[in-house]
């Protein structure tokens, strides 16, 4: 019967696949056992051994970030400590840590890249006040003002500034592009009106109308972020607006300052064309940590960026020269120098096996033994005041970085990072509000009111017991 022939041929074909899979299965039986994965350490080890290994999650990746984190792990594990650290890099950290805490399988220590305020306000991380008070390594006043405040919720401290902290704002410019446009760095704009003129002078188009160089992108670098516990919302505070009142726990997005800020963003987009600008950015990338991103690649002339900008540019755009200036402000606030120092917390999730030892590791994270290799790999500063002295020998020759350090002392306004319990929602609203304005779907007035209403309602729904009216 034809059926039998078919089966035989099939049988042959399947046996090839089968043999292949068995081969593969045989290969994979070996490696996982040899790997020190969390799965095996958590469950299979003898109990006493398991208690001496703590799991540390961090969200930073990238070659330099990973190099720094590995250096920290090695420094700790080769040192004289009563336990070992197992380092795990976690992508999509925010969602993962939520799921892990809720699932009762959290890491013992977490650093970076979560919605910290949401975790603090939902009692998902351990309050550290008692630990900090008892610590000889961590003294609150040894850290830059404002950092510990950005890690507190309703009077309790949930994090310690570690690994990455520093000034968030400074407008860096590409010397060659500015010279090419006949502009002078000495006259760098101090207001948005002047900045707009530079934007017009610096932006270039090809014959078909495709943009090839952009003067200023209001949604790249630190202009885009916030409001978060590690960075404020630039376009609110730049207009002098503290959009989150931490005393009364209310939003102020309905204020005129915000409307004006939104109008300014739109102005920069309108000149180039919003789709042109979005296209260029999405095809090249943002920030300064890749050579092909629009600023390091030399197709964006100016960028608002944090203190890590010069260090990363030295790696990713070694052939270009950059300068730095205070970020422009609106006409009405002319002459004001604004800055903000934000930082990343190290925290202990609820459910950590051994919070005492976890805190010991957090103490370690704030020491020079960690900060020195981190600075060498990534240029990150950390939260201790002693690292902010521009005259330290390690900063010699790094003029742009020294400008950032100096700016902390010279700024007229130092903005604090807000702790908003519905942070992810507000950031999502910010993104949607900016988009609605630049794509011309809403007027700035309407967009501001809508964002204010949405955030206010959301807070009332999620934290009804906090909102008093």
């Amino acid at each position, binding site marked *: 019967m034809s059926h039998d022939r078919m089966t035989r041929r099939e049988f042959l074909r*399947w046996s090839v*696949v089968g043999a292949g899979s068995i081969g593969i299965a045989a290969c994979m039986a070996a*490696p996982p056992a040899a790997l020190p994965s969390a799965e095996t350490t958590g469950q299979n080890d003898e109990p006493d051994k398991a208690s001496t290994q703590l799991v540390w999650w961090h969200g930073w990746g990238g070659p330099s970030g990973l190099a720094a984190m590995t250096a920290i792990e090695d420094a700790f594990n080769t040192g004289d400590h009563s336990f070992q650290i197992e380092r795990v890099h*976690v*992508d999509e950290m925010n969602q993962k840590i939520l799921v*892990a805490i809720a699932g009762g399988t959290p890491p013992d220590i977490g650093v970076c890249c979560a919605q910290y305020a949401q975790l603090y306000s939902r009692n998902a991380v351990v309050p550290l006040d008692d630990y900090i008070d008892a610590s000889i390594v961590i003294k609150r006043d040894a850290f830059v003002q404002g950092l510990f405040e950005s890690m507190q919720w309703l009077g309790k401290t949930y994090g310690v500034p570690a690994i990455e902290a520093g000034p968030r704002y400074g407008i860096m410019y590409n010397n060659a592009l500015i010279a090419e446009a006949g502009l002078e760095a000495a006259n760098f704009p101090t207001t948005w009106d002047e900045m707009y003129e530079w934007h017009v002078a610096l932006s270039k188009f090809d014959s078909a109308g495709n943009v090839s160089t952009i003067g200023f992108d209001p949604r790249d670098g630190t202009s885009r972020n916030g409001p978060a516990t590690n960075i404020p919302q630039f376009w609110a505070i730049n207009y002098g607006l503290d959009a989150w009142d931490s005393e009364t726990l209310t939003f102020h997005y309905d204020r005129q300052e915000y409307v004006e800020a939104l109008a300014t963003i739109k102005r920069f987009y309108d000149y180039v064309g919003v789709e042109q600008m979005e296209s260029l950015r999405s095809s090249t990338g943002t*920030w300064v940590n*890749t050579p*092909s991103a629009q600023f390091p690649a030399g197709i964006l002339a100016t960028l608002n960026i944090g203190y890590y900008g010069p260090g990363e540019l030295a790696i990713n755009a070694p052939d270009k020269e950059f300068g730095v200036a205070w970020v422009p402000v609106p006409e009405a606030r002319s002459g004001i120098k604004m800055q903000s120092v934000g930082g990343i917390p190290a925290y202990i999730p609820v459910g950590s096996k051994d919070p005492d030892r976890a805190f010991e590791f957090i103490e370690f994270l704030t020491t020079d033994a960690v900060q020195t290799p981190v600075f060498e790999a990534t240029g990150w500063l950390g939260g201790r005041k002693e690292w902010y002295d521009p005259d330290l020998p390690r900063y010699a020759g790094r003029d742009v970085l020294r400008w950032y350090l100096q700016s902390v002392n010279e700024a007229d306004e130092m903005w604090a990072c807000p702790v908003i319990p519905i942070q992810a929602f507000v950031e999502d609203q910010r993104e949607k509000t900016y988009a609605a304005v630049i794509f011309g779907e809403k007027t700035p007035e309407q967009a501001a009111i809508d964002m204010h209403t949405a955030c206010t309602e959301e807070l009332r729904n999620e934290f009804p017991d906090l909102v008093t009216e």
Partner: protein
Amino acid sequence: MEILNAKRKSAINVPTRVRFAPYTVLRRLILYVTVISFSLLFAAPLIWMISTSLKTDPQVYHVPPIWIPNPIRLANYPEALSIRPFGIFTLNTLRYALTSTVGAVMSAAVVAYGFSRLQWPGRNVLFFLCLATMMIPFQVRMVPLYITFKNLDWLNSYKPLIIPAFLGIPYYIFLLRQFFLTIPQELSDAARVDGANELNILLRIILPLAKPALAVVGLLQFMAAWDNFLGPLIYLSNESLFPIALGLRQLRSDSVEALMWPYMMAASTMTILPVVVLFFFVQRTFVEGISITGIKG
């Protein structure tokens, strides 16, 4: 038995061809031109992927685009795959895909047997329920399932992804049931007279006849597991457990935004390769299986 074979033959060997003498040459020319241009269109993104995976950086950003890189940079492959433990990701995925495939095929066969070859009160009601569950979006169950798995202590393991496959996936149950219905009842009756029990009939008579249909279910599940992103994203947190889909995502976050296109494309190529090889081996059985399962109506 005869009917079955006839049906099968028609599916494989007899294309619907209508003779149309005067225009034959012209028609064939048009046909080939259309098919070739369409297939090039479909293949273009993947050719572009492979081409990029072999490029050096200047070639990547060259205007106009380069299709055939020269020189070819093969080193992109080992370099891309060493940024992250792609070997482990691949093994994780294979383990997940193979076990869940075995589970899905086994359970679908047994359940489909109950829904097609046995007569019992309430059968059709339950089968209708089974079909109806196909309409329930995963998102509806996502949150409570997550909490259930948390309570079962299954998080951060492949259990939430594999065990449900062993409990029957409605789509596959439906496919196999449709096929089982076409097998003449007399075969089972004869076996019953000889004293075989139902399990024997399933194993000895039905399954051997259903091999292509089982292959379809197997390949569909294998592909689904290989492709699954949302499930692992939610249930797994340790990198050492990640399947290749999450690994690729990790690589993307390493190479933030536009950096390292050749690496991304090399890793993507490696992600696709195993399934393409698998399909190459089973494609005839697959096409054949689809034509004999009930999918087409």
